[in-house]
């Protein structure tokens, strides 16, 4: 009897058991659909691509963290509240307390990653489901955010960050735009449109690549590398698949899970910082429902809610689908509230498809 680990597996079968297969099919279908109904609306012009690309990138940033954590067998429902909290911390420290923006950003990262560690620590030490612990933190952080902003500024929208960030070295890293000269050259060559009226006449309609997109790509690449090319990636799968068995073979399950909670908090803080730098303000209601949107991206991407199975590339494609659908309906001229219906339908179809493919391949009942 041959060892199943040595058994030859066909390329087709190997492709079929990839978690992201459903997301790849979904992405193709969504793009084909929108090419058909909104192809001539400007959705696939450089300006249109930037439009849904930025929204997708935003989802991708939090989806990477949520994906790795879900593969490790845990949930973080406090992601949305963490986004609001991180933004308000940056704004209060930089605008209200006069700290340099770079220091405010670092402080926000330190505080939020520490809160992520606390989330993980409580899950491990209490043995409570992460669903419950992070649900509690969803409320704690949202309440703290509102209380902090009202107590310090008597407002829940704190502006003035853009002015404070002028010339700041870290601000550009989160709110800047790269390849400006290249895009100006594209406009000069007539390859992309330039403004023909208004205050920006002669400038390209797409200024460059926002750092938000760069962060999304960097996190997706890092997450994929970590999960598929490192021993730590194997530990993540093992911790989510069967934590007890993983412990028996020496996997530091507790450490893996706490680090994944910290990474999820890190991703939420990246999201918040990019948003604060783009809009120049923080608000206590930022990040509402983002935890669910992150989970939707991950599930569309083929991950199991029970852990031990999933893909960062799949989650990134889930984020792409989410962004394209949400913005595509605007380009298509559909009633704007319908995107929720569309998204819910895609979620159900993606899960059914992913489950069906997995059962077909693995022979599960």
């Amino acid at each position, binding site marked *: 009897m041959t060892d199943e680990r040595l058994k030859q597996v066909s390329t087709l079968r190997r492709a079929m058991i990839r978690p992201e297969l459903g997301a790849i099919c979904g992405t193709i279908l969504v793009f084909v659909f929108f090419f058909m109904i909104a192809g001539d*609306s*400007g*959705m696939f012009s450089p*300006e*249109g691509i930037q*439009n*849904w690309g*930025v*929204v997708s990138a*935003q989802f991708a940033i939090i989806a990477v963290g949520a994906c790795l954590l879900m593969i490790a067998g845990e949930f973080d429902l406090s992601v949305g509240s963490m986004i*609001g909290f991180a933004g308000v911390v940056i704004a209060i420290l930089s605008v209200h307390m006069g700290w340099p923006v770079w220091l405010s950003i670092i402080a926000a990262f330190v505080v939020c990653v520490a809160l992520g560690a606390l989330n993980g620590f409580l899950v491990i030490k209490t043995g409570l489901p992460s669903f419950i612990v992070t649900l509690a933190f969803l409320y704690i952080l*949202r*309440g703290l*955010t*509102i*209380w902090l902003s*009202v107590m310090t500024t*008597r*407002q*829940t*929208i704190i*502006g*003035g960050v853009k002015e404070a960030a002028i010339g700041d070295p870290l601000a550009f890293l989160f709110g800047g735009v790269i390849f400006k000269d290249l895009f100006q050259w594209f406009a000069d060559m007539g390859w992309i449109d330039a*403004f023909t*009226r*208004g*205050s*920006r*006449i002669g*400038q390209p309609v797409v*200024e460059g690549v926002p750092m938000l997109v760069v962060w999304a790509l960097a996190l997706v690449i890092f997450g994929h590398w970590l999960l598929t090319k490192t021993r730590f990636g194997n530990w993540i799968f093992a911790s989510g698949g069967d934590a007890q068995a993983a412990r028996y073979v020496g996997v530091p399950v507790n450490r893996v899970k706490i680090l994944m909670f910290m990474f999820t908090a890190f991703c939420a803080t990246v999201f918040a910082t990019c*948003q604060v730098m*783009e*809009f*120049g*303000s923080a*608000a*206590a*209601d*930022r*990040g*509402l429902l*983002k935890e669910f949107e992150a989970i939707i991206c991950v599930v569309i991407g083929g991950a199991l809610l029970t852990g031990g199975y999933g893909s960062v590339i799949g989650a990134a494609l889930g984020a792409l689908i989410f962004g394209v659908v*949400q*913005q595509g309906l*605007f*380009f298509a*001229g*559909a*009633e*704007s*509230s319908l995107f929720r219906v569309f998204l819910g339908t895609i979620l159900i179809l993606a899960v059914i498809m992913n489950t069906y493919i997995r059962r077909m391949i693995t022979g599960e009942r």
Partner: protein
Amino acid sequence: MKKTLTAIAAAAIAFAGLTGTASAEGEKFVLISHAPDSDSWWNTIKNAIKIAGDQMDVTVDYRNPSTGDLADMARIVEQTAATNPDGIIVTIADFNVLKGPIMDAVDRGIPVITINSGTVEQSVELGALMHVGQPEYDAGFGAGKRAAAAGAKSFVCVNHYITNPASVERCRGFADALGVELGSQMIDSGMDPSEVKNKVAAYLKTHKDVDAILTLGPNSAHPTLAAVRDAGLAGEIMFGTFDLSGEIADAIKKGEINFAIDQQPYLQGYLPVVILTNYARYGVLPSGNINSGPGFITKDNIALVEKYAGEFR
């Protein structure tokens, strides 16, 4: 275990000290709004009830459904009435949902003043003493008249709180003033600024004929302004918004936003407390309702209000 319980009790007492209500002894009033915890616009009203409470030597609690769910708001009205306060100040966010609980409070003999959302007619039907607020349809209509006078024919209304009927009334009033049917011009934008910005950008790209924008508050105005700037249309397109913030004030000064509709929320918080206090103590009451707005803030009068934008204005 005993030590732990003592520590928890001490922490709870300390926290209660941090989160006290608006004032001292005397009458107790409760203001119940429909707004979720995070809605920045309500700060002004919270500040107003604190100041009114201090001045009148009364206690004023602020209560709201944390997520903005109007069914939860109805429960809050019921719970508040059960505590028999000296008066209730409440928004009529949805007449049908709140009708029963508010009328029950009135039937208990609790004086009620309605504020903000809803109409004078609804307030009368509920048995409230009076209504302090801005007629939402009229405010939208007034904004639409200004846009029409500037030559606007096609518009987009950016609605970040589409589940609140009053928000739709604002958009409908604007549409009626322009003489167009309200349909897909009202965007369900959500509250996330990046999404609001990109939805508006997509709409402007696919509807080149849009020559007027109406936003319903800072949550939609700030990202919409960013989208308009990115599209190179700042100062070129007619832009009106409800409510005020520091950023909106700056944009008005620069000519990027033509006007802000100010319903003077400070008055919606302050006046009911003063009126209820005098009613409880001396039985005196103004005879009519109070329209706190709409007032239009433009480049001409912005200097007067920007100092207090987002705090008292």
